[in-house]
C-alpha cells in the first residue's frame, strides 16, 4: 500500500476501502476503550480540582494587572522625580565659603 492511499484514508475519503493496517488500529481502539476506567476521572477528583483551580489568586492578579502596572509606574515616576528634584536643589545650593 502506498502512502497516498494511506493519506486518503486519514482524510476519511468516502467509499474508500479501509487499509488492512486500520483493522489493527480498530482492534487497539476497542481494546483501550473497553477498559473499565477509560476516560472517567472520579467525580470527587473532578469537583475538587475544579474548585482548587477556581480559587487561584492568579485570576484576580491578572484582572488587576492594569491597575498594578499604573501604580508601579506612578511610584517609579515619583521616585525618579524626587531624585531629580533633590539633585537640582543640591546643584543650586551655593557652596559655603571656605574657612579662612
Amino acid at each position, binding site marked *: 500500500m502506498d502512502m497516498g492511499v*494511506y493519506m486518503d484514508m486519514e482524510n476519511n475519503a468516502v467509499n474508500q476501502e479501509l487499509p488492512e493496517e*486500520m483493522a489493527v488500529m480498530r*482492534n487497539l481502539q476497542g481494546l483501550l476503550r473497553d477498559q473499565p476506567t477509560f476516560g472517567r*476521572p*472520579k467525580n470527587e477528583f473532578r469537583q475538587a480540582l475544579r474548585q482548587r*483551580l*477556581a480559587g487561584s489568586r*492568579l485570576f484576580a492578579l491578572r484582572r488587576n494587572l492594569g491597575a498594578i502596572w499604573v501604580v508601579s509606574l506612578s511610584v517609579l515616576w515619583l521616585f525618579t522625580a524626587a531624585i531629580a528634584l533633590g539633585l537640582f536643589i543640591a546643584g543650586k545650593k551655593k557652596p559655603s565659603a571656605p574657612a579662612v
Partner: protein
Amino acid sequence: MSIHSNKQVHEEEHALIERAKTEPEAFGMLYESYLDRIYRYVYYRVGNTQDAEDITARVFFKALTHLGSYRHQGLPFSAWLYRIAHNQVANFHRDNSRYQETSLESLTLPGEASRQPLPENESADQQELAYLLSLVRDLPAYQRELLILKAVDNLSNQEIAVIMRRSESAIKSLYHRVLRSLRARMEAQHGQRNL
C-alpha cells in the same frame, strides 16, 4: 465539519481562552472540555489512578499559570495542553526510578475480568487481542505514545507532531510503519496458528 464552521469553533475557543485568563468560570469551561482527554492520556501513560490524578492536576495548574503567555498560533488549544501533559509525564518517569512507561500491563482484555468461559470463535478473537496487546507492550515508549494519542485520543498528525516535537511527515510515516509492522506480526501469528 466545514472549514468555515471549523474556523468559527477555533475563534470561539480563542475568545474563551482570552476570557479564561481572568475569569474562573471561563477557565472552568476549558477545564470541563479537556479534563477527560488529558486524564485518559495521562492514565494510559502512568497506569494508575492516583498518579494520573496527581499529574492531571499539575497539568491544569501549569496551564493556568502559563495561560497569560499563551499565544494562539493556529493550532488547537488541546495540542498545547497535551504538550504540557507530555512534559509532566516525562518528568514523572524521570523522577521515579520505577520506569513504567505506558503502563499497559494493568489493562485487561474485554471479558477477561468476568473470567467466563468464551465461545470458541470469541476465544480466537481474544487470543488475537491478547497477542496485539503483547506486541504493543513491546513497542518502544515513543511508539506506544503515538498509538495512544491516535487510538485513544483521536488526535491529528499535526497535533501529535506538536506534542511529540517531531515533524508532521515524521509522525505520518512512523504511524504507518508501526501499524504495518503490527499487522505483519499479527498475520505471522495467525499463520502459525493455522499451520
